[in-house]
């Protein structure tokens, strides 16, 4: 809620400031260069928000106007009538066509298209290429970061686990920081939402998802510029696992409640007309819950990155003694808020997952509502 409000506030400020600059800009040097910078920034943000096939740290233009990229290529894995593996350096950041086994591929907006030897793309009326897209299982920047995060988590938490046996049940080093969080997730997320009897079963998932989202959110704030949790495919995958876990561990009561939400409080002929509406709503809710989960995480991280990068971009647009420090200050403040948002979103995702697991593993001891029993 608060995040949305802040977003709107900052958006308003941004609009106000940029409008103010327009007036000045027109007087000084005309509209053209500003629009150039603006479109460049917009393109840059768009590019950053997308996954990429190589890990670029930064790029600069030399005196001749030639663009240099600093980073390292990642392997591209395609399925196009057979497995094709090659380095993403062949694309030259989308500038050239990659020839592999007699096929030609071209990179456009982080997507790989099959082309002819010249790399011609046929665009439709919305500027989307109509060329064939091979199945792309490349180890992209996001996959690479997921891998790194996985390794980091594995190293961190196995060393924490080992420190218990070595150190007589007392954590050591970085484990001292993470142990209270583990206990917090157990005592304040899993136990109250799922219940004392069944929470143990879900603990590994809740812990993994919390630290996974949190770490990736934090990585997104580093200058490495990875936007993994702000990627719809990642959040879909996470929400899907929550969805599957919820429904595969669902008890009889959970399914009964889904198809018979009123229970024995009403005779069947009374329930029938209500159920024509109620049951579809309940079924829809089944899918809306994880959908809200995935959109919430995606939108929050995406919005955070857009705001932050726009504010940084404003510095280059303003170039004035007032505007640039102001947007720097704002960018700094937003960075701090984003650190909070990073942990908050991880918390919300974990919390809601625990809540859904709680619904699914609920067992009613009293089939009838005691308040309605006397009616």
């Amino acid at each position, binding site marked *: 809620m608060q995040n949305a409000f802040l977003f709107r506030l900052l958006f308003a400020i941004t609009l106000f400031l940029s409008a103010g600059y327009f007036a000045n800009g027109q007087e000084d040097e005309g509209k053209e260069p500003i629009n150039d910078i603006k479109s460049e920034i917009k393109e840059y943000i768009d590019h950053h928000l997308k996954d990429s096939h190589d890990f670029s740290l930064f790029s600069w233009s030399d005196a001749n106007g030639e663009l240099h990229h600093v980073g390292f290529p990642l392997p591209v894995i395609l399925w196009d009538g057979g497995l094709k593996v090659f380095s993403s350096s062949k694309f030259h950041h989308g500038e050239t066509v990659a020839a592999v086994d007699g096929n030609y591929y071209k990179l456009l907006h982080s997507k790989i298209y099959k082309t002819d030897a010249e790399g011609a793309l046929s665009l439709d009326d919305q500027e989307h290429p109509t060329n064939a897209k091979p199945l792309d299982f490349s180890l992209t920047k996001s996959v690479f970061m997921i891998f790194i995060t996985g390794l980091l988590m*594995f190293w961190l938490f196995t060393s924490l686990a080992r420190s218990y046996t070595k150190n007589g049940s007392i954590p050591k080093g970085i484990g001292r920081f993470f142990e209270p969080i583990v206990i917090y997730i157990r005592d304040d997320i899993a136990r109250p939402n799922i219940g004392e009897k069944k929470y143990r079963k879900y603990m590994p998932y809740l812990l993994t998802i919390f630290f996974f989202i949190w770490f990736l959110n934090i990585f997104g704030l580093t200058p490495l510029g990875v936007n993994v949790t702000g990627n*719809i*495919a990642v959040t879909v995958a996470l929400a899907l696992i929550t969805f599957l876990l919820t429904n595969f561990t669902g008890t009889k009561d959970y399914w009964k409640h889904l198809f018979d939400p009123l229970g024995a409080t009403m005779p069947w002929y009374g329930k029938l007309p209500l159920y024509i509406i109620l049951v579809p709503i309940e079924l829809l809710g089944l899918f809306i819950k994880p959908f809200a989960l995935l959109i919430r995480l995606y939108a929050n991280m995406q919005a955070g990155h857009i705001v932050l990068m726009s504010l940084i971009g404003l510095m280059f647009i303003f170039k004035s003694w007032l505007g640039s420090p102001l947007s720097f200050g704002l960018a700094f403040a937003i960075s701090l808020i984003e650190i909070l948002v990073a942990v908050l979103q991880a918390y919300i995702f974990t919390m809601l997952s625990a809540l859904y697991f709680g619904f699914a593993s609920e067992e009613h001891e009293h089939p009838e509502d005691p308040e309605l029993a006397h009616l």
Partner: protein
Amino acid sequence: MEKLINEFSLGLFVWQTLLFVLLLLLLRKFAWKPILNAVNEREEGIKNALEAAELAKKEMHNVTADSEKLLKEARAERELMLKEARQIKEKLISDSKEQAKLEGDKMIKQAQEAIESEKKAAVAEIKNQVAELSVEIAEKLIKEQLANKDKQLKLVEEMLGDIKLN
């Protein structure tokens, strides 16, 4: 919505699902289970230790109370014993005093009786001796008297004279 679908990358989705599930399984086996077990064990240990401490405290309290009680009892017993001893002592003293008195009285009485009988015997003896002495004296006197005939005759005459007077 169309933008979202357009942005959705199947490859990333597959990798994310695969890597995440792998991470979940690995962490569950090598991290979360040992960590949660260790934490549980430690909490259980702390709980047990606290309970044991509480119990020990209670025990300690009981022991103190017990020793206090024992001490009190011992003190009372000692008091009682002392009192008894004193009583016995006093009784002994008074008893022996009485005995001594009785004995003394008896001895005094016996002595008095002995003295009395001795006295009687002595008096009888003295009487006998006095009688014998007087008899002897009388004998001697008579012998003397009788040895002197003239005197005898004179005495007889005197006595006869006395009788005449009567």
